[in-house]
């Protein structure tokens, strides 16, 4: 995914001198973070698959103790939290972390049942505190997921505005990394999960045989705003013509969301963000979301089976033509 430049060469291109006494402590900090990540990678239970496995086990345990959330959550957090300080074994730590996480889920659920606002506030405080320390990526992801779910459940009447706000916050977090704020993972979660929620709601609507969701046009405004934020971040590097095309693109994105499908415009906005931050994860997610929303859009069209087949055929021809054009461009 890279052009082969070294870090030194990129810094030189951006007029950042590694001999500058102002830059030297920051560079040392970057090396320390890199070393810390290398130490964390030595844990055989680090990695995406084990993280998903841990989340699954914690969720299943949550459903087991859901009837007594406060007592079971407190006990799990206290026992597993205390034991984590005593043990050095990777396997035991993984086991204890899983049930500590389950305890956190149960306590969050208990707090949510008590007071939705308080729960969201507490989660926000914990997340806010966590984004200022470089390690603990897993903690940040879990806290941001919990915050997203709690806010969505608490604001069901204005769900689409919540989803839109999360998308915009996610875009800002991903496009504008700030000094001493480690919030890229949080931004990625806030970018991906609104689209996943939309897809899930679309799928439910299709399964129940109802027409598409109402009041989704607000979301297209937020997705267009994402493109505008991207434009703002690129403002110094665009000429007048590129600026004009970008504004036109944002307006088209909004109209696409209003008249065609909000999910399509959201996934296009995500793809643009993924391109400008060069993120392989966001790229794959955006393409997958786009294909799912396109399929949903065609299936929702009020046409006969024959014409649906025709639409898919035209789409396939369009994709092949685009691919042929891209190959010609690549050859140049």
């Amino acid at each position, binding site marked *: *995914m*890279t052009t*082969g*430049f*070294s*870090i030194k*060469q*990129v*810094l030189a*291109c*951006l007029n*950042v001198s*590694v*001999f500058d*006494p102002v830059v*030297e402590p*920051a*560079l*040392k*900090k*970057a*090396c320390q*973070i890199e070393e810390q990540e290398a130490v964390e990678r030595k844990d055989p*239970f680090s990695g995406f698959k084990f993280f998903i*496995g841990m989340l699954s*086990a*914690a969720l299943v*345990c949550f459903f*087991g*103790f859901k009837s007594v959330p406060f007592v079971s959550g407190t006990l799990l957090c206290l026992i597993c939290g205390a034991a984590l300080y005593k043990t050095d074994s990777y*396997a035991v730590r*993984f*086991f204890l972390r899983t049930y500590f996480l389950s305890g956190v889920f149960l306590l969050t659920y208990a707090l949510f049942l008590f007071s939705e606002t308080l729960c969201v506030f507490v989660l926000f405080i914990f997340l806010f505190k966590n984004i200022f320390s470089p390690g603990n990526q897993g903690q940040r992801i879990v806290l941001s997921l919990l915050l997203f779910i709690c806010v969505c459940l608490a604001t069901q009447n204005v769900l689409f505005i919540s989803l839109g706000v999360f998308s915009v916050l996610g875009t800002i977090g991903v496009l504008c*990394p700030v*000094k001493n*704020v480690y919030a*890229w993972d949080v931004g990625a979660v806030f970018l991906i999960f609104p689209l996943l929620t939309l897809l899930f709601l679309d799928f439910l609507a299709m399964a129940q045989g109802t027409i598409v969701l109402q009041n989704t046009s607000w979301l297209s405004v937020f997705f267009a705003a994402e493109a505008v934020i991207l434009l703002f*971040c690129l403002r*110094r590097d665009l000429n007048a013509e590129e600026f004009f095309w970008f504004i036109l693109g944002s307006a088209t994105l909004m109209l696409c969301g209003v008249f065609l499908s909000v999910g399509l415009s959201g996934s296009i906005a995500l793809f643009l963000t993924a*391109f*400008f*931050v*060069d*993120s*392989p994860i966001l790229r794959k997610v955006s*393409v997958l979301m786009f294909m799912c929303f396109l399929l949903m859009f065609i299936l929702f069209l009020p046409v006969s*089976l*024959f014409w649906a*087949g*025709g639409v*898919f*055929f035209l*789409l*396939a021809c369009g*994709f*092949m033509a*685009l*691919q042929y054009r*891209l190959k010609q461009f*690549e050859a140049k």
Partner: protein
Amino acid sequence: MIVPDKNSAVYLNRQIQEKDVRCLCQTGVLPFGASLRAVSLCRSEKEWLRFCSRTLFVSACMAFGLSAFFLAISQWHFVYTTYSSFFLFAVFVACSFLRRFAALDYAGAVVIGAMVFLPDLIFGTNVFLYKQFFLWFFLSIFWAVPSSRSLIRLLPLFLLNVAIALYGWQFVLPSYKMNADTFCILAVVLNLLIAVSWEKIKQKTALPDIAFFRFIALFLSCAYLLAGVGAQIFLSNGAFAFLYCFIFTVFAGWFVLFKEYDRLLSQTLMVFCFLWLSFALYHVAGASFASAEREVFFVLESFLITTFLILKNQLKFGLKEE
């Protein structure tokens, strides 16, 4: 002027990735607002073009497939006419002559099946589905033998198992000739016999290997055992008769038949062991804690998931690794 130390020098000479740009911005090495410029320096446009090209190709193939599906469904009335048999025969002849192309090789195998099912659709013969699948299995052998593609060569094994499963579902079980456990054991024995026979034949003759053959045979054996366990627990509420049978068959298959270490096979067997143990836990939770059956099952299941994840990492299997 500050000279970077050894660690910093090593870090600086490393090839940059997009997460390094993030780290440099977050630590303050890069000023605010320079992240997109830095990313543009390390982004490979060629890689993006290749990704987009591959994605468009896959999307086009899926769209063509969906188009064919919807068009076929919309013109389904054509299938009920005798002209459809002539059409299918013409397609089959074309596939036979042009089977060097992968798409037509696969299409030919599917068209054979379509021609087997067609008389029932046109004339309403009401023939049992398992008989049609047995016939398809038999005819697919003649199509699979000259083919060089593994998926085509594996097709008869799949069709045979589908036919056996349908035979059990439509004939054996409703007529009470035998119960589900016995039927599944016999199906497992058949699959293992096929796998062992194939290994022996391959050693003694010059037949080319079929990729994933023994994996698929063992996979299907485990699937039948799992189906038998599920039927015993959910339908007949039986005891743990399957416990010993499952353990014996899985480990026998593992150690005795397949002495070479096969990572895919061992991971698949772990998945089946996990699923079978989940069934067993459900049985235990239901038998011992009638009022809190679901909650106890969830807690035990979470222990099982965590244990399997730890074992997956820690356990060294006693098989020879190449």
